[in-house]
């Protein structure tokens, strides 16, 4: 631990997660999702947006990750199933994801050590999110307005990823949140 850490890694509590699939060109689909969740689906690739205490991340051209306060996922899933029609899929993945937050002046170096993606602010400003390689695992990385990064990793890899980050940030001085 360091007095003035270069990197701060915070482990976030569990959240409710729904993997949502459907056709973004189908207004009925988009409207139904917005009605149930209060969230506009981001249709631009590699972007995410907060919506109150929830957030939604673009994962692919027909796939999103809806993140909710823990415990609300079952209710939202049920209401989505009622509201949606046609081709769609809703899957509870709350157990899948571990949420980490990376901040501090040297946070960028940790990402540079871990991923071939270009996280330079010119290429990855706030509001962008990307699924990419993270060391020998993978992660969803999102750029926050405060300059910090959220990392979403699969639970079975979480110990590996945390150990990796601890090793990568050691030279900069680090702290645990």
């Amino acid at each position, binding site marked *: 631990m360091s007095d003035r850490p270069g990197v701060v890694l915070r482990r976030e509590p569990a959240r409710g997660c729904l993997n949502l699939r459907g056709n973004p060109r189908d207004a009925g689909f988009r409207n139904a999702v917005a009605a149930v969740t209060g969230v506009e689906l981001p249709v631009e690739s590699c972007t995410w947006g907060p919506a109150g205490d929830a957030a939604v991340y673009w994962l692919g051209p027909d796939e999103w990750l809806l993140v909710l306060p823990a415990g609300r996922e079952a209710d939202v899933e049920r209401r989505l199933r009622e509201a949606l029609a046609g081709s769609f899929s809703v899957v509870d993945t709350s*157990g899948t994801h571990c949420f980490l937050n990376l901040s501090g002046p040297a946070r960028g170096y940790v990402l540079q050590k871990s991923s071939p993606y270009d996280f330079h602010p010119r290429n990855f400003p706030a509001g962008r999110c990307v699924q990419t390689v993270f060391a020998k695992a993978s992660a969803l990385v999102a750029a926050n307005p405060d300059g910090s990064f959220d990392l979403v990793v699969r*639970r*079975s890899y979480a110990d590996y990823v945390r150990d990796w980050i601890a090793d990568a940030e050691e030279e900069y001085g680090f702290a645990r949140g």
Partner: protein
Amino acid sequence: MGTPRRLPSGGRIDRDRPIAFSFNRREMRGFSGDTLASALLAHGVATVARSFKYGRPRGIVGHGVEEPNAIVDLGVGAAMTPNVRATEIELFAGLEARTSRAPWQGAVGPLARYLPAGFYYKMFLHARGFRTWERFLRATAGLGGVPEGPDPDTYDHLNHHCDVLVVGAGPAGLAAALEACRAGARVVLADEQAEFGGSLLAETGPVDGEHASSWVARTVAELESHPDAVLLARSTVSGLYDHNFVTVVERRPDAAGAPDVAGAPDVAGARERLHRVRAGQVVLATGAIERPLVFANNDLPGVMLASSVFTYLHRYAVVPGERMVLCTTNDSAYRTAIDWVGAGREVAAIVDARPEPSGAAMQAATRAGIEVIHGHAVIEARGRKRVREAVVAPLHGEDDRLTGPPRRIGCDLIACSGGWTPTLHLAAQTGVKPRWSDEAIAFLPVPAGDAVTWAGSAGGARSLPACLQTGAAAGAMAASRTGHGEGRVSAEPPETDEPPETPSRALFLVPHQRPPSRAPKQFVDLQLDVTAADIELAAREGYESVEHVKRYTALGFGTEQGKLGNVNGVAILARALGQDIAATGTTMFRPSYTPVTFGAVAGRDVGGFFDPERRTPMHGWHEEQGAEWEDVGRWKRPRYYPKAGEGMQDAVNRECLAARDGVAILDASTLGKIDIQGADAHVFLDRIYTTGFRRLGVGRCRYGLMLHEDGTIFDDGVTARIAGHRYLMHTTTGNAEAVFDWLELWRQTEWPDLDVYCTSVTDHWATAALVGPKSREVLGRVCDDIDLSRDAFRFMDVREGHVAGVPARVFRISFSGELSFEVNVPAHRGREVWDALIEAGAEFDITPYGTEAMHVLRAEKGFIIVGQDTDGSMTPADMGMDWAVRRNKPFGFLGERSLSLPDHLREDRLQFVGLASGDAVLPEGAPLVEVPDGAPPIPNQGFVSSAYHSARLSRPIALGLVRGGRTRLGEILHCALADGRNLPVTIVDPVFYDPDGKAQDV
């Protein structure tokens, strides 16, 4: 020990920071800013090593990456680094360097005439005796030693993205980087030296009206002020790969040495860092390396490159001798002799191969009082352990032959220059074939595409103004190609006062009175002792391709990869073949440009990070229980849970009996799980699986078998219908990702019209399998919203409810043949539910079991494990699983067509059977034969795929694959063991326990 060759002033060394070090166990001193090579030269050390093949004494030749001789083992013990060039080692306190040699190497010299290129292909022809010879050969081979233990240091990788990568921070590179930065591009500038500036660091003339070093300082300061410029010193660009992926290896000062290196940052972390750069544009400002001349005994210590002598003089204030003969073919080397006089040393003569040299350089030499002998060359060096005299003879003006008698000139240093070789290794790595230019007397780069450009002397520029100008232009152009600026330079290139050059002479092998085969050795590749005679011999024997010559003589195979010898070697070959150099061509250059530490290539992906270890939510619990582990794919699974004093078999027996008689619990979280939903989900599953899913009721489960298109078994598992258009598929642990990819491949590429989505939920669910006659009672204590009774919750049913208060899905399925409930809860609550089940089971002595007991239980039931009982060539029929294949589906299923291929219908295919042996557990993998003895080849009847001791049956059981096995029940085969024993085994039905399935249906 004194430093007789150090000048009292000058150089870029810090005389206030003396550094003690040792070389071959001799204590020495140098200064901060020295390299090991400059410090050794300051001490007057002439011989630094012995040559690889002939054991001849060798001295320092160059001052950078081209150095072939001064190769040392740096450091001791586990932290020793073999084969480092002394010219690249920055001196640090406590440095210990050694050169290695074989004990008898000095004795090889007299035998040299018997050891021409490729001698070993012509002797030791009795193959069985070669191993003996080889031991002798190998003992003389090799350069460096091997570190004595695991590397105490670490290495890492850092990814970069930039618009413009500039390779080399000499005059051209600095100018290029500056222009690219000013245009607004993201720039990475890398240079192998500790300081930026390249040749300017030894430059004495002015640049832009100021001293060269202050121009460098001003330029570097401006670069540092650009926020998007990454400046990497001590960083060698080692490889230029497809799509402008570039590897840069940064040497970060050793922890031990760091405090003593002036200006070194206070670094923590890796010893070396591999920068993985993805560049829009690459500007190669890699400079040029001076070419030595090939003359007799040109390997004697005291023969050096003229530019190296110049560099030692100006940058390190070291004079590597007292009395110099300069042998040159061009103007550029003259200033070495002129400055040598300026340093108070003597120049015996400048020997210029050109018939009538003229121009500013020659005039300046004459003004300095130096005798210039034109139309001559040094044809031989003489001396024992270093140069004592140079033999000089007149050359014919055009063809290379002598026109008069030689004379001798006493000297202890021969500085030579045969011209300049642009450093094209990186360009050549991309497959670009350099083009020979008679005018430039060099291979020059040929543009290929517009993502890589050249600047400065790498592109053939010969003067400082030309280097600065081509650099600036390349930087501006590269920036504009990535969308920054218009491609015009921001300022006129700085002025220098360099006079124009006069033409050079092309001279490679200096003629001798005797032909190369009889002259004293004329070395082309100093490191591997390749001579002009060797190249001529290769050509004479028909090895005419330049690649053949390289491979036959080892030319350019050394650690400096032909940086000095390549062009001379090609020229000598061309002459031997009577063709020109352009037609002869050059060899390929492979990455790395200079050798790269394995550790740097590996980065942090070693030790615990070599491959991620996947853990289930209950991992900690297993650890607390002292589980022994098995690696399954990337997962860690408990193999068994030994109690105090228990061996593996004891533990497994106990765990098996608990499952059969009481209750046992297995962490099955690692099984692959895929959520499949959509209106066509059932159609999709019908196509993927051999089994039918269309009519499976909601809340019911079915076993499925998945085939490759070639009809072989890919995976198996249970799939449940969760809702009308929703299924949950289970896969094997090892295949989870491959199956998911397989589903997506077909869904996305072949059947996009199907309304179906697949989502991996492997990580979402934690799974605890409660197994055994008491499992219902245990589950009943923590689950009150599912009716667990036999008729309400049938075998192969799935139910939703709560377990220990957590929303759960419970499957009544069984891989053990016992009553069994698989409890699935979201993974973040897995551990709490597991703990609750353990607590609920306490009064029934609930027993955790691992993969080993799981294997025994399933083997007793004759259940297969894909990948253990199958090997990628087995069909459902081979495994006796035709019952799982439905042949009348409307679409059919993947792999169905292959099941009727003639080879798949053969009756003597390997078929899945049980094997009953006596008292011994058969070795898994052991072969089965009909007749126990005989001479090979003995017909192979099959093999044992699984074998265990069954605690329930109190005897060994085994499963195996036997040719035509299912029609041979009762037949006796023999299991042939390595120790010569043959165990009789009887072919039996593979189901050993409860063939009617009563136990699981209670």
